[in-house]
Each structure stands twice: as structure tokens, then as C-alpha cells.
């Protein structure tokens, strides 16, 4: 892991005395539990807070003793799907960010910065405008195709393993610029499409309903499972290709699986709620500061903490311009931009 190569020995590189390792594992497990607790609190807040405030007691009532009162309907039909979608999408973006950073050994790798989300967006925009696809299940496949093509393209163009953070970020940004040019052109030719797309292309959880959640969930779950399976080889690969091969990791298989994961996660997330940037950048960095460079801990932490950030941003967006909403994609960009700039300004990054 390039960014945080403080000489803290991980369990793999330098075997510590067993008691110390056990204590560290217990500590990390406790931390994960605490993070899950925070996630539950944020999820409850996401159900309770909004244009109409719902007291926690009524949230409880709506969740477990549904009886059809007005608050119950809001909780059941609007807030719960929205929160579930936030959980899924947040986990997807965070984990895909962590996998991308490990795969490219690049601290700035992130589905938004590298243009993967823009690729999915361009494909979805094409699907809506040219092929008349209107259902989520229809255009999620386009989103996968777009995400796959762009992630492969940027990875190859950016110089594969030899890529520096700057090269990769520039390749991604340039491809993003090209794709946004295309998206803008499509929207210009068809003002009806513009009216639909300008809300989708911001990145918002507002359109969530139960169907969206059930349609998206299988893809994201599969993506998360694959990510969990490649945690070990990714650990080995962080030591460099030669060492990884010597340690018995399948380099090509791991890379292909990583790309599949990233495609599944980003494609599904983007299809469901539009391009959301910076979640996949910020969370792995925060997580790495807690867990150290071991992917087997980074991935679960990222899966838990990313939804905290996404749902938190969503709640903030609902509160600050009440009764209107600030789309979550805007909130995450406004929070994430400064974090990105902070990372860039750090000494290690400046040296590159």
C-alpha cells in the first residue's frame, strides 16, 4: 500500500509474537463492531430526518409494528428503501475504491476520479436516449458495460502497474472530460432527456424505492463477495509483482477479478443513483489510518464506514436546505474535494 507505508509491521510481512497479534486482532474486531454501531445510528437518523421529522419511537413503530399511519407509510415506503440503497451504494463505492487503490497501488485511485462512474453514466445516458431503455434492470447492463470499458481503458492508458498517481488521475480526468462532453451533447439534442438526466446525473438517493434496492442488491453482494475473496492476493500484490508471484499469488487472475469487482460495484451503484464521487477515495484512506495496510481488515471496515459517510452526507443534504434537498452527490463532492486536496498537499504525495 503505497500511501501509508509507515513501517508498522502487518501480520503478514513480519510475524509478531502471537499474543500481540491476537490483541491487535481483538482491537480491530472491536473497532469494526463500534463502526457497525455508528452505522446503525446513522441509518436510524437517515430514516428519522427529512422534510418530515419522525420521532425515533415512531421509526421503531414503522419498522417493526407497521400499522399504516402516515409516519409508518413514510418510513416503510420512502425512508427505508432510501436508507437501504444508501447502505448498498455506499459499501459498493467504498470497497471498489479500496480495491482500485490496492490494484493500482495508487493513493488517488477512485472510481469517480478515474472516470469509471462517468463511463457508466455515458452508457446509461445512451441507453435512455438512443435505445429508449427506461427501467433500472434494463440500463444497469449498459452501466456495467460502460464501467468495464472505461476502467480497463484508464488502467491501460494510465500505464498499468507503472502508473504514477498523476498519470492515472490525469488519464481518468481526461477520459471523464471527454465523456461529459458526450453526455452534454446528448442532453442538448433532446431536451426531454435533459430534463430527466440532469437530476440523475447529479448522484442522488431520492428516487429510491423497494424495487431499486432489490434489483441492485444481487450485483453489489456478488461484487462484495469477490472483493472479500481477493483480499489475500491483493495483500501479496502490494509488495510488488515479483514478490507476489513468489508468494504464490495469481497476478492475472487477481487483476481480472479486481476489475470485475470494480465494474460490478461501480456499475450497479451508478445505475441506481447516478455518479457519486470521492466516497471511494476518502473512506479507504481513513480506514487505512485505523487498520494499517492489511486488505482483509480494510475491506470490511470500508464496507461499514462508506455507508456511514454516504448516509451522513445524504442526511446533511436533507437538513441544510429543508424542505428542499441537496443531492448526496453534491455533498460528497464538496466534502471530498478538500480531502483530496489535503492528500495531494501531503509531503509524500507531493514527491510522488
Amino acid at each position, binding site marked *: 500500500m503505497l500511501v501509508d507505508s509507515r513501517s508498522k509491521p502487518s501480520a503478514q510481512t513480519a510475524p509478531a509474537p502471537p499474543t500481540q497479534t491476537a490483541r491487535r486482532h481483538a482491537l480491530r474486531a472491536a473497532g469494526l463492531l463500534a463502526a457497525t454501531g455508528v452505522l446503525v445510528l446513522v441509518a436510524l437518523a437517515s430514516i428519522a430526518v427529512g422534510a418530515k421529522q419522525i420521532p425515533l419511537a415512531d421509526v421503531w413503530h414503522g419498522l417493526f409494528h407497521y400499522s399504516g399511519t402516515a409516519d409508518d407509510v413514510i418510513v416503510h415506503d420512502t425512508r427505508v428503501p432510501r436508507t437501504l440503497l444508501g447502505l448498498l451504494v455506499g459499501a459498493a463505492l467504498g470497497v471498489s475504491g479500496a480495491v482500485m487503490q490496492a490494484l493500482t497501488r495508487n493513493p488517488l485511485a477512485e472510481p469517480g476520479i478515474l472516470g469509471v462512474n462517468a463511463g457508466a453514466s455515458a452508457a446509461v445516458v445512451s441507453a435512455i436516449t438512443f435505445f429508449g431503455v427506461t427501467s433500472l434492470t434494463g440500463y444497469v447492463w449498459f452501466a456495467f458495460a460502460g464501467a468495464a470499458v472505461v476502467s480497463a481503458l484508464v488502467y491501460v492508458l494510465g500505464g498499468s502497474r507503472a502508473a504514477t498517481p498523476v498519470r492515472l488521475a490525469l488519464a481518468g480526468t481526461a477520459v471523464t472530460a471527454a465523456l461529459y*462532453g458526450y453526455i452534454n451533447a446528448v442532453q*442538448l439534442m433532446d431536451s426531454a432527456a435533459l430534463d430527466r438526466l440532469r437530476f440523475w446525473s447529479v448522484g442522488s438517493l431520492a428516487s429510491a424505492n423497494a424495487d431499486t434496492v432489490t434489483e441492485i442488491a444481487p450485483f453489489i453482494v456478488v461484487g462484495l463477495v469477490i472483493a472479500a475473496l481477493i483480499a489475500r492476493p491483493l495483500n501479496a500484490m502490494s509488495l510488488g509483482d515479483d514478490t507476489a508471484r513468489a508468494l504464490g499469488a495469481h497476478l492475472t487472475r487477481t487483476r481480472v477479478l479486481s476489475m470485475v469487482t470494480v465494474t460490478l460495484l461501480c456499475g450497479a451503484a451508478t445505475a441506481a443513483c447516478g455518479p457519486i464521487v470521492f466516497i471511494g477515495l476518502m473512506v479507504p484512506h481513513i480506514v487505512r489510518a485505523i487498520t494499517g495496510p492489511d486488505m482483509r481488515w480494510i475491506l470490511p471496515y470500508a464496507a461499514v464506514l462508506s455507508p456511514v459517510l454516504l448516509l451522513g452526507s445524504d442526511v446533511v443534504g436533507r437538513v441544510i436546505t429543508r424542505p428542499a434537498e441537496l443531492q448526496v452527490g453534491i455533498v460528497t*463532492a464538496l466534502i471530498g474535494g478538500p480531502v483530496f486536496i489535503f492528500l495531494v498537499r501531503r509531503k509524500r504525495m507531493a514527491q510522488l
Partner: protein
Amino acid sequence: MKAVRTPGGYSFRADTRSLVVVVALLAAALAAGVVLVGSGDFDIAPLDVVRTLFGSGTPQQDFIVNELRLPRVLVGLLVGAAFGISGAVFQSVSRNPLGSPDVIGFGQGSSVGALVVIVWFGGSATEVAVGALLGGLATGVAVYLLAWKKGVHGYRLVLVGIGAAAMLTACIQYLLTKAQLVDATRAMVWLTGSLDGRDWAQVWPLLALFALLLPVILAYGRPLRMLEMGDDAAYALGVPVQRTRTVLMLAAVLLNAAGTAAAGPISFVALTAPQLARRLTRATGPNILASGCMGATLLVTADWASQRLFGESRLPVGVVTGVVGGLYLLWLLVTERKAGRI
């Protein structure tokens, strides 16, 4: 490279190939401009256009050429040149062929300024231009200050710019969702970049700015060339590194913001023009003049293509530069990677 000595004891160096390329590109830009003036709903032959420009056409031709189409073409030429030059300066300062102002956030800054005027105030075209200018300048200053850390380093500048670009894109999209559909369409046209309906009021400020900034940029061309060798080498050769960079960036940001204010953030001209110019001149350094002429040629040709190729729908010029520029970018990334340069 030839050294020319004058009798008075002065001498200057000139690269013959670069000189030829600049002259040829200038001719090409003007020729494309003449063709563009002549084409439209009422076609005029290029020779007639030239005759009219020199004041001996029919009154009808005179009105169409001098009042309707010439300002548009001049804005196109000037904006193209502005993008080309600011792109050359930025790519040289950041020492990266992708470090052009439209990639690292300045276009987005101008867009936010313009959109604020369109969406919140429903302002006129001039007010939109002022908004774009202020937005671009504010972004330039902010990025520069954020990238400052005992001096500004090229890579850090690019990366900070990318972060700023992402935030500004979010602002653009927020403003688009807040707009009425009519305003949103207008904003979208502006965002794509268009030369429609430009008149003399846009030409004069651009021309004045050029007269002011071009000498400054040219004067700093030589230090900039040494800067490309790296800060330490340039410093050792007596170049005031930070001052050169500050002055050049300020001038380039101004040019870029003025161009964006006049025609919208037409994408990829700033990225491609310097690269193409460099391949033609085969000279090192920023190739400022050649890039400017190349930018003007590109933009005017693209405008002609956007009028001709799409028939009735007449897409804004930014669509053409976007598509062509995107393809070019892919090619650039592939070849540069093969050569191991980026």
C-alpha cells in the same frame, strides 16, 4: 535554429522550421476564417468574401460579411488562439501534456460563474461573460494558493486542479438541477461552448486583452523553456522560478477565462492545439505562437464542421471539439505511453 546578426551588433536566434510553421498556420487560420465567413444560409465564394472584406463588395454582401459573420469568425479565431496559448503555457508549466486548463478545473470555474448568472440572476449575455471571467479568475487564484507550499510544483498544481474540478462539477450540476428547463437548456448550450450570435461587442475586449497579454507571455517564453528542464536546472540558469510561474499562470488564466467568457468552455482546444503545434514545429519549449495559430485554426474549422455536418440541427461547436478532442486524447495517451513520455 539560425542566429541572425544585424549590423548594429544585435543578434537574435530564429528556428526556421518554427517560423515557417507559424506563418503557414496563420495562413491556414485566416483561410479557414474566410471559408467560414462565406458559408451559411447565404453562400458567398471565398474570393467575393476577400473582396468584400477590403470594401468592394455589394451592399448585401457587405452587410452579411462585415456585420453578421465577421465578428463570429473573429471571436472564433481569438478564442481559439487564447485557448491554444493558455494550453501551451499550462502544459509547459505543469510539464505534462494533459495539464491543460480545461482538464484541471479552470473551465469548470468559469462555468460555475456563468451558470450562477444564468440560473440565479437570469442575466444577459454580457453579464454571463463577466460571471465566467470572474469564476475562472477566482478558480485560478484558489487553485494556485491551494497548491502553494514553499512554491508551486507542477504536479501538485495539476492534482489540486483535478480536486477543484470535481468540486466545481458538483456545483455545476447543482445549479442545473435548480434551473427552470428553459434556463437549463440555455446553460447547457453555454456549457458546451458555442459561437452563435457573437458580435463586435465580444471582439474588442478579447483583442485588447491579447494586445496586453501576448507580449508578456512571449517575453517569458524563454524562461518558461528553461523551466521545462526542472526547477533546479532553471534556477541554476538564473531563471526567477516562482515569479516566472506566477506571471505566466496569471496571464494564461486570464486568457483562458476571457476565451471562456466569450464562447463558453469549448473543450479540448487547449489540450490538443499545443500538442499538434509541437509535432509540426518539432521544436522544444512551449511553442506559444504556433499553439495560438493552431488553436485558432482548429476552432474555426470545428465551427465550420459543426455548421455543415449536422444539417438542420446546427450543434454548438463544442460538440465537435469534444468528440474530435476525445478521440485525439486517446491516441495521445496511447502513443505517449508507448514512447514512455507521460
